[in-house]
Structure formats: C-alpha cells, structure tokens
C-alpha cells in the first residue's frame, strides 16, 4: 500500500515511516526540505493549498491509499498565531489534499491529549469540547485541529491522541520542548521542582516507536478502524517516575517538592510559582506542574490489536541518547531569551 506521511522528518514521523516500511508499505514523505528517510521524499508546506505540491507531484500521488498527518510544532512558547495557523490551516490543507486524491480511503490525524486542556471529570475518546480551559496556545491549536478533523466528511478520518512521547530516535529529532524534557535542565542543576502531589500522577507518556506503529496500523488496516483512539503506556508512569528516569543517566536524583494544589491555598501556590520561576523553570512548563485530565481507562480498548509492547527502559534511553550525543539541553535562561 502507498501511504503519504506528512511531517515525516519529525520525531513521530520518523517512527511512522519506519513502521510502515517495516510492514512492507511504500512511503511517500512530505516535509519542508523534502528529505526522505524511508521512502520517496517530497518538499511541501502544510500551510499552502495542496501542501505546496505541484500538479505533477499530485498526479503521482493518485494511487496513495492512506494519508498520515503527523506534522506540528510542540513549542509551547511559539508565537500564538503561527502555532494556530500551522495546526489548523495545516490540518485543513491535509484534509483538502487527501479528499482530492482519488485513491485515498483513510486519513490518520495525530492529535494530543493536551487538546483536552484542563478538562474536569473522567474523559474518554468521544470527548473533545468539554468546557475545558487551555494552558497555552499549543493546546488550543491541537483542540482546533482535532475539531477540524472531526468535522471532515469527504474522506474517513481516524484520530489518534498521544500524551508526551519519549524514547530513542535519531538524536536531532527528540524535541526538547513541550514535555517532561523541558524540566530537565532545571532538575540537572539540582534545582527543586514544585509539583502537585509531588508529581505522583500519570502524565500519559508513551513510547514513540509504539505510537508510530499504532499510526501505521490505523493507516493500513483493512476494514473498520476507530474514529478516535488514544495511546499511552498502559503502565501509566507518573510524572515523578518519568523525571526520575530522565535524570538517571546523569546520576541525578530530581528534587521534587510537593506543592499546593489547584483551587486550594491560592497565595501559597502563587508564591511557589514565583519561586519556581526564579529558579529558572519557564512559565509554559509551570502550567504542567498539576495533573492532566483524568482519562477513562477504557480509552485504550479501542486501539487496533495487538498493541505492541513498549521498549524496556525507553524513558531513560531518551535521556541516555541526549547525554551521549552531548545534545545541548535548553539553557536555564532560554525562557528569558524567548520573550
């Protein structure tokens, strides 16, 4: 089967391409530079109509059977209009292009659990707009993009949501923003991190390689696939555990401090936040020091079976990789320079 992967040179896109190739499918990769890691490469732009592809290139895609959309920016502090335009306009363009390709029978749209923002109560796959508020424009962009994908009627769309994805990959692809890795520079310098309940709540982290396989399965499986499904590591590692694993390669024990809870002791919480900010944790990351929404455990049931198992030690292996390649982590003052 011929599969078009949009955003193929990203962290997740790399594993989608790898999984598809391994399963014997032909992959056409669209990225800004047109690099190909697993199949044929095309240079395109998701913010342009027709993904910026010419008529000849589009004609060559006429036998594409499935489209995977896994482009995006996970930079929480990026310019809001750029973020929203990228995700919303990009999703529209991907769907328009897919609807215009005669052979396409399915689009897989990659969403995020962060599209649920600060949703209250138990949330399942069905829910999207639940009166939630958002921490940042990234969450809002993901919410809007998923809303666009859910409204699509010209071509079947399967939506898959992920939490923070971790795990080894070519070092340059591991994003240092938009997840627990963002706290790493602070923790490695011995600074304390104030977390609600000391970080003993799940962050719905998952193995990026498994996420790639889930997407590949959704794109290529014959017959019905779920309209919306969610993947995360069923072991539900807590934020505290994830941070411990990430710090292990440096032989550092993260100093996680139990902080005030949302809604209670507002002045205390405010003081804690001010203190954390002074210690160098960015304002964007600070929003994630409280638990994510409660997910219905049944959300995993809709995943196409069998779901591959996570690679052992994938959490600490991510940090191993960053340490061994001496990839520079975000400096402490990155937040200041961003603003």
């Amino acid at each position, binding site marked *: 089967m011929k599969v078009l992967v949009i955003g193929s040179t990203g962290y997740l896109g790399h594993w989608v391409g790898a999984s598809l190739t391994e399963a014997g499918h032909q992959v056409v990769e669209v990225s800004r530079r047109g690099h190909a890691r697993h199949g044929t490469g095309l240079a395109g*732009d998701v*913010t*342009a*109509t*027709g993904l*910026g592809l010419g008529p000849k290139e589009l004609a060559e895609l006429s036998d594409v059977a499935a489209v995977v959309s896994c482009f995006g920016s996970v930079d929480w502090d990026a*310019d*809001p*209009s*750029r973020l*929203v*335009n990228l995700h*919303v*306009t990009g999703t529209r363009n991907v769907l*328009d292009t897919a609807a*215009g390709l005669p052979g396409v029978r399915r689009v897989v749209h990659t969403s995020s659990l962060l599209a649920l*923002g*600060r949703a209250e109560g138990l949330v399942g796959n069905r829910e999207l*707009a639940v009166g*939630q*508020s*958002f*921490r*940042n*424009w990234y969450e*809002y962009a993901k*919410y*809007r993009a998923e*809303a666009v994908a859910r*409204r699509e009627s010209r071509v079947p769309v399967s939506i898959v949501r992920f939490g923070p994805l971790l795990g080894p990959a070519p070092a340059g692809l591991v994003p240092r923003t938009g997840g627990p890795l963002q706290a790493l520079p602070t923790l490695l310098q011995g600074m304390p991190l104030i977390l609600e309940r000391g970080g003993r709540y799940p962050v719905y982290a998952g193995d990026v390689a498994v996420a790639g396989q889930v997407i590949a399965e959704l794109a290529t499986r014959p017959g019905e696939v779920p309209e919306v499904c969610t993947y995360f590591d069923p072991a539900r590692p807590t934020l505290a555990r994830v941070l411990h694993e990430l710090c292990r390669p440096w032989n550092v024990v993260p100093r996680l401090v139990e902080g005030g809870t949302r809604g209670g002791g507002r002045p205390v919480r405010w003081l804690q936040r001010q203190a954390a900010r002074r210690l160098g944790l960015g304002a964007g990351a600070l929003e994630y020091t409280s638990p994510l929404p409660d997910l219905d455990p049944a959300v995993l049931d809709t995943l196409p079976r069998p779901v591959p198992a996570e690679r052992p030690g994938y959490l600490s292996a991510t940090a191993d990789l960053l340490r061994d390649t001496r990839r520079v982590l975000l400096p402490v003052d990155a937040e200041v320079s961003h*603003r």
Partner: protein
Amino acid sequence: MTTPSATAPTGTGQDTGRQPPYCRVDTHVHPRLRVYSAGNFGEVAPERLSPMSWSLVGRPMELGTRRFIGRVLGRPRWTTGSTYVFTGYLGLRPYHNLTAYCHVAEEVVLTEPRDVTEAYFEGVQPPPPSDVERVRGWRKVMVGPRMLTELLRLRTRNATLEQRVFAFEQEVRDAAAAGIDWRLGEFVARGKRLLEIAWEVHITCTSGAVAAEVVRRKVTGKLVPDAESVAGWLREPAELPWTRLYGLGGMREGPADFLDKIFYEVADQHLPWVEYAVRPVAKPMAGSGGPADVSPREALIGMRSALRGRAVDASVLFLGDMMSVREQSKSLAMRLLHVHRTLARELARARGVAHADWPYLSMDELSGPDLPGPAEVERRRESCAEALGLDMPDYLDLRPGAAPDAVPRRRPTGVSPGVFEGVAIGVEDMPTEDGVVLVCESADANIMPILPFVGAVVTARGSQYSHVAILCREMGVPAVVSHPLASDITPGRRVRVNGDTGEVRILD
C-alpha cells in the same frame, strides 16, 4: 442647534473644477477643518449620492454626530454653526471630515488620531492638528466618563430605536395602502427624527469602537503575552445582523425588505443615481454554521489568572458589542431609508413635483414651505451632470497650499486572521477551483456571493472596520486590506496571504 445649510454655494457652472464648490448642491467646506476623506463611505456608500439621499444620510448624520460629540466634549463652539463640521457633500460624493474626527480623538482620553485612521481611514497619516479650540480644565477631565456613559446606554437606545423603526415601517406601509396623503407631514417629521437617532447611535458606536479598540489593545497588551499576535482573533460576538434579518425574509413586506434594495441611495429608480448604486448581495452566513468551536477569546481566559482573564474578556466583549450595535444601527438606518423611498415618492406626487425631479431636492425642501421651482431644479440637474464628470478622489486636502492631488500612503493591515496560499482571481471572476485568493481594489457587500468559495482576500483599500473586513472575519476568511500589491497582482498568479501580520507575497 443651527441646522447646517446644504445648498447653493454662490458660484455654479464655471466654478466646477479642482477647487470647491464642485457642484451647486455642495456643502460648504469648513473654514478650518479642511481635510476630507471618503473613509468608510468610500466602501459601502455609492460613489455619488443624489441630493435627496444626502439629505437623508449626511444631514442627520451630521446632526447626530454634533449631539454626541457635543455631549462628550461639553458643547465646544466649533461643533456648532451653519457649516457642516463632521461630514461633507462635495461633487455629489459623501465625505467624512477627517480633521474633525482626528481632533475629537485627541480630545478623548487614551485615543489618538492614528487610532481613527487605522480603524476607518485606511491607516493614512493623520492630517496636521487643527487650531480649533481645545477642551480644558474640568470639561477635559469629564470627557472619558461622559464617553463611557454614552457607550453604556447604546444597547438600550438601539433596542428602543428598533421597536420604533418597526412601528414606523408598518404604519407607513398600511397608510400607503389605505391613502397616505393626510399623514405625510407626520411621517416626514417622524422619519426625520428617527433617522437622526439612527445615525447618532451609529456614529456613537463608530466612535466608541475606536475607544473600545484602544482599551482592548491596552488591556491585552498589558495582560497577554504576544498580544499583537492574537489581536486579530479577539473579535466577538458576530458583528453583522444580516443572518438575523434574513430569518425575517419569509415575512411578506417585512423588515427584511430593504435587503433586496440598494443601500444609501433612495432614488434607486432614477438615472443617473442608479448607475452609482451598489446593490448589496447580503446572504446568511454559510460559513458560520456548524458546531461552534471554543473561540480564541474563551481559550485565552483560561491562560491567564482569573482576574486577568476577566479583564481581557470584558475588554474584548465590550469592543465586540460596540461593533455589533454599530452594524445593527446601520441596518436600522437602511430600513428607514427604504421607508423614505415611499415617502419621497408620495410627497412629490402630493406636492406636484415631477417624478424625475425629486432626487434633486432635499427632504426638507420637498416637505417645507420653500419648494424650489422647476428652474432651480433644472439648474441643479445641469450642475450635477457636470459634477458627475469630475473625478472626486477618496482623499481631499483642501488646506490652503496643499497639493491638490496628494494621495496619502495607506498602511497594509491584516484584518481577518489566518494564513492562506492560492491563485489570485478578480472580483468579477467566479472561483472555478478551490483555494483561490480574491484580489481587488475595494470590496463591499457585492463580494458576498463568492466569499464562501475563496480562501483569502486582498484589497488595495479598506481598514480594520471596513465592510470587507467585517465580512471576512464573520466567515473566517483571512484578509489583508490597503495592500499596495493588490493593484499589481493579476489573476492567475500565486499569492500567500497572512491575515495576522498583513503580509502578502507573490510566489511566482
């Protein structure tokens, strides 16, 4: 208050040229406030108006503006007198007095002339300050509170007005069927009063929107990171009343009747006026249906602390409400103008004025004791024909020594957020493929039929509150106005439009 005079500058025929008066029915140019701009008139109103229509648009708008500004600034002398201050009718074209509005902006706390030009006058450089008297002392302190008081009672005034307009429409319609002659005087007087109120409410909202925009900008600038980046999204609620009015379309001879007619011009059956008229093709918003997403405004509330979120929310909603009432009051003015089509026709018949002649008279003349005779009408007809041959520019700098043809530079502005890339088409073309960008000189309601099929709009003229800007925001179509490239982009070229930053690029 003295009623401004609208007629008969002493010179006629031979005076028409590059200097005013351009026509026998021109208003006098203000002796000290001498820079005029068509502004929003240039986009939504016909390029030329008949004297009758001007008397139903310009005169009540002038009086309404004087009342509003008088109350806010404490009735300064420069807002009185027999010369038109805030509007002008030059060479049969309606103008706003840009110097006067910029002067008001200087007097109101927080606002600056630049805010006025950005909002309604295509971002042109404001004219030099005028030397009319300034508000000082206690009166100056009270300008802000007075302005706020005016704005806070707008919604109520508009609602009351809507009820009165509805009753007026019904009574005129019933009387026209049963014999209107014996009530003509009453209807003319009521219509005059209602038009003054409608335009007063409209101008109050228009001015209030400038102040509200500044407040919104300052509040979000202070409380929201990257405020500039999200400014374009923070416009709620829906600004246009058309969808609601179209819901009344099924009512026979109901309030939605005017939607099929020409806006601003009451002499829509008469030459030459009908040739300048713009027929609005307003339709319910096809693009605004479907389940409503959480709006950026709602999203923003959660990103800030409770107090900051509420402050941002209030400032955005205040601006949105201002814009909404502004459009609603305009629709009421248009409904009243539609009723005046019947009144003018019946009044002319009752007073023995030829059907072809009444567009050359004002409503006061047609209903008053000094009805101009056929000779005067003929002189006006000739003078108007000459004036129609003149090219009346958007911008008139009539200060002594000013270059007559000076065209100020417009500032490109992104007025509806979003990014789009596609092939350019003109306003006359029908989009044949998905993903086209409408590029035109100026777009008004006549772009409505094609708007659902275009991905972005670029115009050479327009400003933040132009009709095209409002339409595009309503339909979620990215738009950039006042862009110099709009004149260079030919159909078929590939362009990229960024409605957030106002950037337009030709790609091939």
